[in-house]
């Protein structure tokens, strides 16, 4: 990672960080949305009821509803049916009949489903196949959904995740609550409009930075400027841009998704007791020792944003550069098969 030659301002970001944030933001997954044939209104144009979307990984299913609705109204439904549409009753299921968690980012739904299906079929799909969704138009199973899948509820859930991430990082939510209402709304608008600049204009105020430590630390070595230890572990005692440094967080917001569950969450410090940076490899051997052991070949692999991240990637860096729009690094675990070995 290159060191900026000028003194880093509070919001200056190295080009490589911006690159990875943009790559994460621009990541998309193929979806095939099909209305449950039993629910297609009479006089619908059957044969056309499948809609394909290349959806942003950082977006959410309820945000796709307007686009899907426009298509169905233009192409599939007749006028009578179109008048009866109540999109607040819409809900999605996977092909296998699993209720989809609409408060999960689309990329997470996709990766988790891909891993689960390849496990079930005992195959390894090497080509990205569209995630086939069944769209139901009525009778949402509100008990199981827990919350209504409206855009407003989705926004609240998203804000909640951002605050939880903020609290994990700093032990308080001052950065989130310090934003003006218009700024907080701007984060969600950025996702709705899928506008990188709009989202990051606000997110840069609350996301850890990756600028190297100033003044107290030795000049960065040529190998990696990321390994300098912060002068103090207490963010409060170190005013200025370093206060928000990726290595100063108490814990990186990370969740592990095992195929078919459970979801695991725990404190993830950026540095370990012996002064070593917390890498993905150490993180996995610590939390999933039955699958990742340092004295043998791993039985599983880890995907972040659909990418097999190298085991030496640092958790602090992942938190600053490859987290989702809600601030969380979602690590999806899949089992290695003979055919997957060439990816390592």
């Amino acid at each position, binding site marked *: 990672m290159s060191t900026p030659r000028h003194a880093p301002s509070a919001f200056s970001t190295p080009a490589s960080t911006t690159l990875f944030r943009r790559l994460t933001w621009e990541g998309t997954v193929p979806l095939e949305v099909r209305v449950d044939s039993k629910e297609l209104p009479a006089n619908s144009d059957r044969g056309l009821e499948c809609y394909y979307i290349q959806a942003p990984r950082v977006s959410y299913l309820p945000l796709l509803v307007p686009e899907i609705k426009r298509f169905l109204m233009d192409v599939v439904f007749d006028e009578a049916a179109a008048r009866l549409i109540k999109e607040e009753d819409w809900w999605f299921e996977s092909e296998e009949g699993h209720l989809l968690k609409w408060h999960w980012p689309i990329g997470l739904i996709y990766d988790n489903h891909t891993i689960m299906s390849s496990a079930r079929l005992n195959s390894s799909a090497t080509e990205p196949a569209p995630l086939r969704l069944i769209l139901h138009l009525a009778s949402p199973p509100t008990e199981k959904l827990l919350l209504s899948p409206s855009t407003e509820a989705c926004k609240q859930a998203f*804000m909640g995740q951002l605050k939880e991430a903020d609290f994990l990082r700093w032990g308080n*939510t001052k950065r989130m609550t310090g934003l003006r209402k218009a700024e907080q709304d701007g984060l969600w608008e950025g996702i709705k409009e899928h506008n990188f600049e709009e989202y990051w204009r606000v997110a840069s105020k609350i996301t850890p930075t990756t600028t190297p430590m100033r003044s107290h630390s030795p000049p960065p070595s040529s190998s990696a400027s990321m390994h300098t230890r912060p002068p103090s572990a207490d963010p409060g005692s170190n005013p200025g841009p370093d206060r928000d440094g990726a290595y100063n967080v108490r814990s990186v917001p990370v969740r592990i998704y095992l195929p*078919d569950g459970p979801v695991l*969450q*725990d404190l993830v410090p950026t540095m370990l007791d012996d002064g070593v940076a917390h890498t993905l490899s150490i993180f996995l051997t610590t939390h999933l020792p039955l699958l990742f052991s340092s004295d043998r*070949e*791993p*039985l599983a692999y880890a995907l972040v944003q659909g990418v097999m991240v190298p085991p030496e990637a640092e958790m602090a860096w992942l938190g600053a550069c490859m987290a989702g729009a809600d601030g969380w690094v979602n690590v999806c675990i899949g*089992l290695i098969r003979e055919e997957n070995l060439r990816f390592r």
Partner: protein
Amino acid sequence: MAGSPSPSSQPSAWTTHDDGASMREAQEALETYKKKDAVKVVVRFKAVGNAPIMKQNFYKITASNRFQAVIQFLRKELGWKAGDPLFTYINLAFSPAPDDTVSNLFKSFATDGHLIVNYSTTAAWG
């Protein structure tokens, strides 16, 4: 990750040729991680604003429960109906997703051996 040791130093079950044994072991590992153990953790309920204070505030709750179950439990203890407004927060800071588990929340946010759950009749921290 460790490099591949030479075949002669490894028990035959672990060589990459015996994919079946590795897969079985991996599947067993997944089953182990899926098991919901009966461990209970201490949750401390704290009223906010006008919300009534309960006689008993500390409860032992099964860690594998989802937070949704905690909300329903709280509703029952308060004697409130499904439609009555009830807002819950962790450490006065955020509202967790209802499918977050108590175990995950406890590991991440417990203080002094218990997880603080604030409850209120109005949205306090929105």
